[in-house]
């Protein structure tokens, strides 16, 4: 099934939040709230309450970076003493 996109422009941030809240509560078939993207030139943390949590993978990237750094340090010390 092809996916259709809908773009809405809002002049006022409160109106955008009200529209998202209404969409979330409307239970439209085939519509997933995670597919909704809100773009804004400034930060609006309050919108997260309406949009809900979304899965984030940044912490895994950080964990891999930390492990690689630790391993590198270990091999540096180990190779210097070999």
């Amino acid at each position, binding site marked *: 099934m092809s996916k259709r996109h809908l773009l809405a422009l809002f002049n006022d941030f409160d109106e955008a939040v009200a529209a998202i809240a209404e969409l979330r509560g409307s239970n439209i078939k085939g519509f997933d709230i995670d597919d909704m993207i809100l773009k804004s030139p400034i930060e609006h*943390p309050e919108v997260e309450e309406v949009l809900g949590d979304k899965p984030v993978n940044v912490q895994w990237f950080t964990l891999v970076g930390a492990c690689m750094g630790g391993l590198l340090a270990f091999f540096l010390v180990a190779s*210097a003493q070999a």
Partner: protein
Amino acid sequence: MGKDIREDIAWAQINKDVLKSLESPRRMYWVILFIAIAMIGVAVGSEVYQYQTGMGVSNKNNSHVWGLYIATFIFWIGMSHSGTLLSAILHLMHADWRKPIYRFAEAMTTFSLMTAGLFVLVHLGRLWMVYYVMPYPNERWVWPNFQSPLVWDMFAIATYLSSSVLFLYVGMIPDLAICRDNIHAGWRKKLYTVMSLGWEGTDRQWRNFRITYLTIACFLIPLAVSVHSIVASDFAMSNMPGWHVTSFPPYFVAGALYSGCAAIITLFIILRYVFKFEEYMTLPIMKKLVRLTFAIAMVWTYLNLIEFASVWYGHDQTAKDQLIFKATGPYAPFFWAMIFFGSILPLMLAFKRFQTHLPILFVVSILLNVGMWLERWMIIAPSFAHGHYPWTWDHDQWPSLVQWGIVFGSFGWFTLLFMVFCKVFPSVSMYEVKEMVYHRSLALKHKPAVKGDY
């Protein structure tokens, strides 16, 4: 007091004003750049001469092994703390007046650290063996002494530099996207496209951005405090008279914040004029900055007095002799100049009439930093000239022109880096100024028309 910023500035106007600063600054910009390059020329000439001839030309000797180089190193490390104060501490305290001015303060942090790092190289006799200062276990049989604060210095400063570069960069991403979308061709377009990392301002990006920025801010505050505490430990953990003082770490941190705030005032005035930022770097913001500087100056003065009192009433006779030597010996004019510029002059900042008088503030802020530079020199030179060993007592040292030339040129190096940064990257945070304007206009909309409406 007037408004920190006008709440009716259009967002498009904010973009336009800041983007214009990347293209057409006043002519003074080029004058400053030229002077900075000339100053660097003096430093490069002095360094080449010192490198080819030997460290003797700097007038350093067996007693005075650090001289102006390490004094200036501490000065530049200290200068870097204001960026963390403005961006991280005031960010966590929700002081939104910082928003138009924190970006250049952060840049100042990064470039101060880069300038400070140069002095580690400059004061080495054998520059080609610079990698020996890197404290890692190696096959050269030069094992790092992890009990030495000099080793901690290396780790702390390297961590602080990388963290502040990251903090500066992460905070700039939304603005780099604005630059990318408004500049249509050329190297700038490519640079901003790569650096903005595909920023579109989606709710998810903003969420990740907020969490990342907050995390780095929380990480930076203890790091900044520890960096200058460790620099203070370079002195306090030795038994040199005048250095073995318990209050040195907080004294150094207060001095660092003090000199940094004074430098922010100087750069605020320069950027406001050069890039025509009168709408954003407003006088009410300057007033708050000046009051903050005054408060920190008084903390520094208090810690200074505590140090003098604990030495005077303590039982360490050599430390007391050292204090008397500072106040009455050959370095006395510099010692008293430090007291005057560091503790007496800032009292002016308590008066409202001076808090927004830009020409006076420009001069005073520079003099405050002269005082703070003298403070660092007065920590180092008198202790080397009047140590525990009597043979040091006739070793008053006046730095040679080579040392002065390199110190002088470091200011040019910092200025060059800073001014180039301000021409390539937005020195006022566009998205945060928009937030500031947005929240203030909302507050104005919901404000009762007549007092007592609630």
